[in-house]
């Protein structure tokens, strides 16, 4: 280069410029490296912690450790112990360690339908002492989509069994449906009896009213006939008494029917509420899963908003095709 610069003075200036450019480039590269290192927490003061699990599924080196949604650390390494347990080491930035007390636990959480897992620290009670380096924390897994689906299937099984058993018992000759049918027949019969009784009572009252009217008309003519009329009234009262007795029998019959209904309701009350409860929980789980799936990419993009569609033309109309 000096050889060239001795021939051309412009090359000496160029040499300085190239040197400056190279220095600036190296400086920028170093700065970027430092920034990345800071971002990665290489210079941060950290504390190493660990947890043990018997399944390393969804856990991998470098995965994030979070506290209340904040990234507070990273998974360092996974090793298989002599006793067969898997030990996982991770570090937490010391500035967040104040929030994690003794009694804290680590939970593996899945993000969305296809999302990666993260380790979430569930902080212990605030009155507990601080954690020390290399302390062993308890570990648990939150249900992922697969586990939720499995759980749903497991919870649906007893419901379906219950439905099958209940349906069978309902359809048996002495089952609930036949029982209800019998009760309904009793009701109908009772209704008919009551209707008949009402008509009978009305008839008796009308007849006796007529007789009483006649008796009263005649009372002015012949006082001695009053006794006879009174006797007739007595007969009418007796008949009314019989009618009242019949009404009492009917009320007893009603009471029996009501007792039957009570038994039917009581026998259903034992089995139906747990079924409904299970069904409600299962339906809610299913709705949550479907709702989450619908909101997750890429299913979200596959879901088309509903559109109003025109019915297909049928110029050989349904009316022509189906004789009424």
């Amino acid at each position: 280069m000096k050889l060239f610069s001795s021939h051309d003075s412009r090359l000496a200036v160029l040499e300085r410029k190239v040197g400056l450019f190279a220095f600036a480039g190296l400086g920028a590269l170093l700065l970027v490296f430092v920034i990345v290192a800071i971002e990665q927490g290489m210079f941060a003061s950290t504390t190493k912690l660990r947890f043990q699990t018997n399944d390393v599924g969804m856990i991998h080196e470098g995965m994030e450790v979070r506290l209340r949604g904040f990234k507070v650390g990273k998974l360092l390494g996974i090793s298989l112990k002599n006793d067969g347990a898997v030990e996982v080491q991770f570090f937490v930035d010391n500035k967040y360690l104040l929030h994690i007390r003794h009694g804290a636990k680590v939970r593996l959480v899945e993000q969305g339908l296809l999302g990666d897992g993260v380790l979430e620290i569930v902080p212990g009670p605030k009155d507990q002492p601080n954690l020390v380096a290399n302390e062993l924390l308890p570990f648990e897994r939150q249900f992922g989509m697969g586990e939720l689906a499995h759980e749903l299937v497991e919870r649906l099984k007893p419901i379906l069994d219950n439905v099958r058993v209940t349906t069978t018992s309902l359809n048996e000759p002495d089952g609930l449906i036949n029982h209800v049918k019998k009760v309904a027949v009793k009701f109908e019969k009772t209704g008919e009896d009551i209707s008949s009784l009402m008509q009978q009572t009305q008839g008796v009252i009308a007849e006796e009213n007529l007789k009483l009217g006649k008796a009263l008309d005649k009372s002015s003519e012949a006082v001695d006939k009053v006794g006879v009329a009174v006797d007739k009234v007595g007969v009418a009262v007796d008949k009314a008494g019989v009618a009242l007795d019949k009404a009492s029998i009917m009320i007893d019959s009603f009471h029996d029917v009501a007792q039957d209904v009570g038994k039917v309701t009581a026998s259903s009350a034992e089995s139906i509420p747990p079924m409904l409860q299970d069904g409600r929980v299962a339906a809610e789980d299913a709705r949550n899963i479907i709702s989450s799936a619908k909101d997750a990419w890429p299913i979200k993009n596959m879901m088309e908003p509903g559109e109003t569609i025109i019915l297909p033309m049928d110029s050989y109309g349904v009316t022509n095709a189906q004789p009424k």
Partner: protein
Amino acid sequence: MVLQMHSQSNSALLISFCLMLVACGSAPEKQNSRTEQANKLSARADAAFLQGEFESAKNDYLQALRINQSVENAAEIAIIRFNLARAFHELAYPEQAHLQLDTLFSEPALPYPPATLAAAAALKSQYYLEGKESSLALSWIEKGEGYCQKKCTVAGSLLLLRAQLAQRDNRLDEAQKFADDAVAALKPGMQQMELANAHRLSGEISLAKNDSARAIHSFQQAHAIDRKLGIPGKIRLDLMRLGASHERAGAAAAALSYYSRALTVSEAMGSKQGADEVRGLLKALQIIPEANISGPQ
């Protein structure tokens, strides 16, 4: 130079890939809550209509129409009025059906899509044709063709209506040509029901022209589609027409088989009138099976 061009094409490829990726990742446009509600009602009404629950379909369409009118969704209003006209027609309210369709063509009108207006015109023509008002039916076919420009989805239906008009006027060659054009215009995937109608009409025209072989072929095609769609009334019609075609061709045994099948379908539908009609055809063949309707009358 070649290297530079190669580099440019690579960049273009990369940009295209990125654009496609963005397009794939983009979410569809979110509907407003009222439009969404109206669409749900409309979808429910469509399902009710296809299940033959016309009263329920009518009520849901009316509600969906009111919501769409409140936000001036012109395209949806036009579609719902068309569907509503179909529901009213099935409920035997022909005036209400015509009123819904007339509203689409009266002033002041919203900018309704021409394809829906073409469909509405075709429907009016069909109703006039059913009412034996041929001149009005023809005028609405022409109006529909004006909106359709031979390219819309009801182009095949308009040809089918022209074929029916020609058949009614005993212009059989012309009718056959329109029916054939309709078969060609109707898309097998999208317009199955109308395609089956076109095959059936083509078969009827062929039968009227004493071309039994062609009629049988057309009815068989119609029957295959109707079985696929699962429309008992039309399956019954196809079987009756197939029986008639075989009877005309002198194949009494085949005719008997088709009529018997038509009778079974009629009985399964619980249609006494339909069953009696088929028995009449069987009687003409001198074979009358016993009545066997076990379903609702």
